[in-house]
């Protein structure tokens, strides 16, 4: 019995599925032809292409500003590094500065590029961030700048949602859905055919807009054409396509669950406003409220204050123990104290320096941990909105996202630790404050030069690394897609041959 049932099922399945697949294909072709002939879809696609050219132009200009400044600062830095004088390790030295090279991906996806420092300096107290990058638009934290990502999220996102609405609610309002549903076609086949056609139309609009933007940027900046960037762009294309199909499915679900077209349209546009605008803003607002973190600048000021106070205390307390260092010309650097005095001063200094380092590093660590927590929350909160997921995926792939900022900050902190060991915690020159308020100091060892310090090297992430950075977002978009398409297919039968449709 069991075998015969199995055989029957195995025979029946292709018999049922095969004709339905042919019908999916027919509906797909029909929908594609109808969408290609639709004036509104053409106008929206043409508008998206024009906007893509505009965002590419703005992005290129913005990048050029940052790049020109980077070149200028590089030249200044090179000039500084040719100087012969050594490093005293007593204060901030411009020669040690690390410049932030702008990412070419920012021409298309701005991300956090504009809120990153232009450079970082190294001081005995720790890293000192420079001013943020000049930009045509100041706040890009939540993608408020119009770039390729926000174009997809807003303009093409609206097209996807309205297309989804039109395919169900629009057809029901026009009366054509009743004709379609009266045919011997499984509703899932109709829904799948429509989704595939909608996805192809959106794919075409996405490809045209992306080609316009990427082509325009590639003409000005040939480095965009490197395989690394091309692969990252393909990754962005995949993320954007997934997002658009999610919105298409969402439009179909709304169309299926509402009776009147006007209600579907109002609901659809409200959801679009949430997904494309409010969602990403809400994520940032919620995270900043739940896990507030002081700005890097505030933290650096606090750390500097603590460091300066401890340094002065150490200079005074050690100076008071060795009054014999006073009474001579201040900072007579050729002066060499007696060996037992020198050993004692160095021992005391080292102990103070270690304690101070522990305290300032704890302040830094507090900021780092706070920011990491904020980034983690930001990533989790973002999952609640497909728009935020797309934003994160796109910025990570363009190398302008949070992982890039974290990577820069981590590498800069590592450089600071190296300099602490080489220079700041083992200073070649010691300065003390002896009674009477005069400065006194001596050289402990020959001053190192910039050439002896290992230059900073920023690891530029390859496309694989960028894809790995955005893997969670890509997986979440796939989950959104499966859930959205599944729901669109499941709810499609509710767009029944309702009485209203039959009254047409």
């Amino acid at each position, binding site marked *: 019995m069991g075998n015969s049932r199995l055989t029957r099922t195995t025979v029946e399945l292709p018999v049922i599925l095969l*004709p339905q697949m042919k*019908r999916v294909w*027919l*509906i797909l072709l*029909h929908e594609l032809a*109808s969408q290609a*002939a639709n004036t509104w879809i053409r106008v929206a696609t043409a508008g998206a292409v024009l906007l893509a050219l505009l965002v590419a132009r703005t992005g290129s200009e913005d990048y050029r500003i940052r790049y020109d400044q980077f070149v200028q600062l590089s030249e200044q830095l090179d000039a500084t590094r040719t100087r012969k004088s050594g490093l005293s390790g007593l204060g901030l030295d411009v020669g040690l500065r690390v410049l932030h090279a702008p990412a070419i991906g920012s021409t298309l996806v701005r991300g956090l590029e504009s809120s990153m420092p232009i450079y970082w300096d190294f001081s005995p107290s720790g890293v000192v961030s420079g001013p943020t990058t000049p930009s045509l638009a100041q706040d890009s934290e939540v993608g408020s700048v119009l770039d390729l990502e926000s174009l997809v999220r807003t303009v093409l996102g609206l097209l996807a949602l309205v297309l989804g609405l039109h395919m169900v609610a629009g057809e029901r309002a*026009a*009366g*054509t*859905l*009743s*004709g*379609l*549903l*009266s*045919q*011997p*076609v*499984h509703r899932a086949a109709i829904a799948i055919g429509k989704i595939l056609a909608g996805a192809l139309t959106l794919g075409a609009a996405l490809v045209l807009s992306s080609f316009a933007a990427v082509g325009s940027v590639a003409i000005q900046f040939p480095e965009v054409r490197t395989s690394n960037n091309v692969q990252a762009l393909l990754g962005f294309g995949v993320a954007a396509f997934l997002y658009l199909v999610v919105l298409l499915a969402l439009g179909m679900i709304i169309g299926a669950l509402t009776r009147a077209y006007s209600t579907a349209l109002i609901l659809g546009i409200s959801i679009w406003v949430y997904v494309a605008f409010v969602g990403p803003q809400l994520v940032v607002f919620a995270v900043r409220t739940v896990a507030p973190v002081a700005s890097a600048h505030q933290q650096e000021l606090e750390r500097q204050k603590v460091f300066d106070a401890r340094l002065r205390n150490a200079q005074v307390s050690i100076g008071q123990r060795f009054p014999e260092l006073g009474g001579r010309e201040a900072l007579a650097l050729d002066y060499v104290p007696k060996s037992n005095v020198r050993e004692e001063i160095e021992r005391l200094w080292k102990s103070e320096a270690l304690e101070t380092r522990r305290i300032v590093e704890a302040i830094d660590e507090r900021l780092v941990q706070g920011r990491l927590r904020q980034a983690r929350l930001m990533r989790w909160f973002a999952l609640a909105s497909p728009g935020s997921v797309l934003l994160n995926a796109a910025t990570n792939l363009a190398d302008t996202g949070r992982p890039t900022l974290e990577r820069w900050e981590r590498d800069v902190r590592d450089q600071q630790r190296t300099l602490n060991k080489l220079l700041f915690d083992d200073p070649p020159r010691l300065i003390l404050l002896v009674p009477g308020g005069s400065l006194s100091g001596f050289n402990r060892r020959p001053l190192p030069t910039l050439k002896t310090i290992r230059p900073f090297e920023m690891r530029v992430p390859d496309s694989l690394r960028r894809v790995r950075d955005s893997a969670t977002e890509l997986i979440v978009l796939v989950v959104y897609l499966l859930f959205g398409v599944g729901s669109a297919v499941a709810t499609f039968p509710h767009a*029944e*041959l*309702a*009485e209203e*449709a*039959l*009254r*047409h």
Partner: protein
Amino acid sequence: MIEIRRLSKRNRDGTLALDDISISVRAGESHCLVGSAESGRPTLIGVCLSAIRPTSGEVLIAGVDVVRRPVQARRLVAFAGSHASLYGSLTIRQNVEFFTRLAGVHNAAAPGVVENGLRWAGVPERHFDVTLRNVGSGTAVLAWFAIASVRDTPVVILADPTRGVSPRTRLAMQDCVADLRAQGKAILATTTDLAFASAFDRIGVFHAGRIVAERSSAEVMNQSLAQFALELGGQLPLDPNHS
């Protein structure tokens, strides 16, 4: 061919859209239900096309239960609705080709098949390649009859096809109904058009979800249709353009 047994459908608000309906239409028979849209007429068609799930009772199309095997049941039915349920952006020919191919008619694209269907339905040849939105609603509805002809199913269901059509087109539709019946098909129709209903073997008056009266065409011919409707059905709209 069409067996409707003790069919009821309760609306969400608790009212009955269909109240214990039973109809039987055999091969070569035609049956027309006359009633307003509020009478439950569209709900009955919806159930027959497995678009609306009944609360109780059953509908069998050539022995196939429309609830349990909806796609197989629809395969046996050609549906003719209003002009609005066809695609206005397609030509008449494209509409017929699309819907017949969708229904699984493999030779729909073969030369002459669609044209013959359109000619049979009385669609003027000059309208074959005109977009649907540019022809009158009557001609557009005739395209549904052409689809029914090409599909050649044992059952044909017509939902208010004469709404807004000219008397001439109505006559063409009546010819189609007579021809389909002669071909041995079972035809079930709903309408508000009493003149159109006269082309059917049996006429039922549908009111408040129930069939309140039923006569054979011959019986009805012996009295005024309007009189019959008013006498047995109560408040029926006599204007065919009003649903």
